[in-house]
């Protein structure tokens, strides 16, 4: 736009060159961003491929359905699978009511006081505490109970009595309580987000019809928030399944020759239900812990066994995450505010 004619000519070519170089810098930067995104994804593929490759030949039906043996060829994942199943079921039973309850309080009831703010900040901080610290907490609090002398109490359950040993020792219940503390912040944060996404108009409509606060929450807000909560809970539980550090610290058994409850076959769940009540107090192992122990074995073949275990673990996680995504997609379509 220069008004001096004889200055425009050189200026134009110089600025054109400058613009060119700026554009190529831009292109280069875009490429760097694109490439670094793909680097992570490619590493993911390489990881899956290398694990899958190492597991071939070792992953079999027998591997998944038998107890761990002494020899490499007899390695089995059953004790870990059942142990992980028990762990995560009890963890879900405990952490969902507690977590959702805390989230409801924080989102629906809590007034913005200093104490509320402190609780929120504390939850965010707890989510960042290393899992191994939870392991130490669980070990001291549940496994040893600060060195409480051992005692046995008979607890009647109607159909059966079982003996409750305190301190809990290296039992499933101690592990599940530890994992509950660990996953609680994650569940709370997910549930809070789900509750927050329910529009205020739903609550107002409910109040206008004369519902009390709890009726509004129970009959309107919670049902609307359930898909979000469920997704968060499933993700938290799949994290809990993969946790190995706190379980290793709790001192779960490295080798274990029975499944929790000492079931010999699946039919005993029906014929001997008293074993179900005893199962949470048994020693246990878990899938990630078995993998860790196999990795630590000096023998080369155990690496392949570990790979086979990893494939099973990843398959379980994929199933869980897939169902979480399915729930999210399925219900998102249904609810239209």
């Amino acid at each position: 736009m220069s008004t001096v004619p004889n200055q425009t000519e050189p200026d134009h070519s110089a600025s054109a060159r400058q613009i060119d170089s700026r554009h190529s810098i831009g292109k280069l930067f875009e490429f760097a961003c694109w490439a670094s995104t793909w680097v992570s994804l490619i590493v993911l593929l390489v990881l899956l491929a290398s694990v899958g490759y190492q597991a071939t030949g070792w992953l079999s039906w027998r591997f998944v359905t038998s107890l761990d043996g002494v020899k490499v060829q007899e390695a089995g994942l059953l004790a870990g699978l059942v142990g992980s199943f028990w762990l995560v079921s009890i963890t879900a039973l405990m952490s969902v009511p507690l977590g959702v309850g805390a989230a409801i309080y924080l989102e629906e009831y809590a007034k913005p006081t200093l104490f509320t703010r402190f609780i929120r900040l504390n939850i965010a901080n707890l989510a960042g505490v290393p899992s191994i610290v939870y392991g130490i907490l669980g070990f001291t609090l549940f496994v040893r109970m600060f060195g409480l002398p051992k005692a046995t109490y008979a607890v009647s359950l109607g159909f059966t009595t079982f003996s409750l040993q305190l301190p809990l020792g290296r039992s499933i219940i101690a592990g599940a309580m530890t994992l509950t503390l660990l996953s609680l912040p994650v569940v709370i944060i997910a549930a809070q987000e789900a509750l927050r996404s329910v529009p205020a108009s739903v609550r107002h409509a409910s109040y206008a019809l004369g519902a009390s606060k709890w009726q509004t929450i129970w009959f309107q807000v919670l049902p609307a928030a359930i898909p979000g909560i469920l997704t968060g809970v499933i993700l938290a539980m799949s994290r809990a399944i993969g946790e190995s550090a706190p379980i290793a610290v709790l001192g779960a058994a490295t080798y274990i020759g029975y499944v929790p409850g000492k079931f010999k076959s699946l039919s005993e769940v029906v014929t001997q239900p008293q074993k179900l009540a005893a199962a949470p107090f048994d020693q246990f192992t878990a899938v990630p812990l078995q993998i860790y122990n196999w990795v630590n074995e000096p023998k080369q073949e155990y690496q392949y066994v570990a790979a086979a275990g990893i494939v099973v673990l990843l398959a379980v996680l994929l199933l869980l995450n897939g169902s979480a995504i399915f729930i999210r997609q399925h219900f998102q379509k249904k609810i239209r505010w």
Partner: protein
Amino acid sequence: MTSDSTDPAPSAAPAGRMSANTRELGFRLTWGRTREVAIQFGLFLCAVLTTLVTLAIAAVLFVEAVAGPGGSAFFQQVSVVEFLTGTEWTPQYTEKKFGVLPLVCGTLQITVIAALIGLPLGLLSAIYLSEYAAPRTRAIIKPALEILAGIPTVVYGYFALTFITPYVIKPLLQPGAVFKISWLWNIPVDGFNALSGGIVVGLMIVPLISSLSEDVLRAVPRTLREAGYALGSTKFDVCTKIVVPSALSGIFAAFLLAVSRAIGETMAVTIASGQKPTLTLNPLMQIETMTAYIVNVMSGDAAVGTIEYKSLYAVALVLFLVTLFMNWVSQMVLERYREVYQ
């Protein structure tokens, strides 16, 4: 609004001469109201439980590490100065030395390597996802990155030990030995090394950084970007001179969270980086991190009450304080950031 808010107005009607109508509006203890209050109290307890967890962690670590009954705590037997400045960590030997520096050094190595890999990768992917990627691409890539975050750490450890060390690090650093060619260079690499552990921890924190940073980048108002374009900036200029600087505090918070995760990372480094406390800056040697030490002693059989067992709590205390501090700063920064843009 709620049944609780049907407050009577006692000043309006003198006591004792309350008409039937006003008494209807007065506070009565009904089953419904009691239930409402009880439920609220129950929910409040759930929320308070989280505070108790923090207190329990602090109490357990304090009692076992700082001041226990009868002088049994770790720091009542080992001086803090010796712990923090000693260069040898040999709790298993007969001559026990408790200098935490080798463990701290191991953790530091892992953290620095992880940060060098995770921070640029994570930030660049965040920029890609928030500024460049088409919505459909983002819809595919974001869940894929989340998969990366969902993989258990024990799997990463396995990957580092059985793939990264033998098939990436060794061929690059000691091709002479690997390919049996005598004139090529040969840098000694341990089977367990800090580098492989650091690399996988770096990959592990990529999704954390990218998703958190993407959130803060997207929160930067569109008007700022458009102002940049109106002044003739290229997309690169807008990204690096406007969007990233305005989101800097949020990105910083994401970095802090990621670094604190790297510090607390346990299984991957226990598997990949070894179990030998070494005071070294060479990332190709076997080391032991603070977290790995805890796992190794606990999955072994340290007798409860021994000084070796107590040392776990001292190490865990350091770990807890460091990560808590970083998380706390990060939360503060994020909160401030949300206030600015929302």
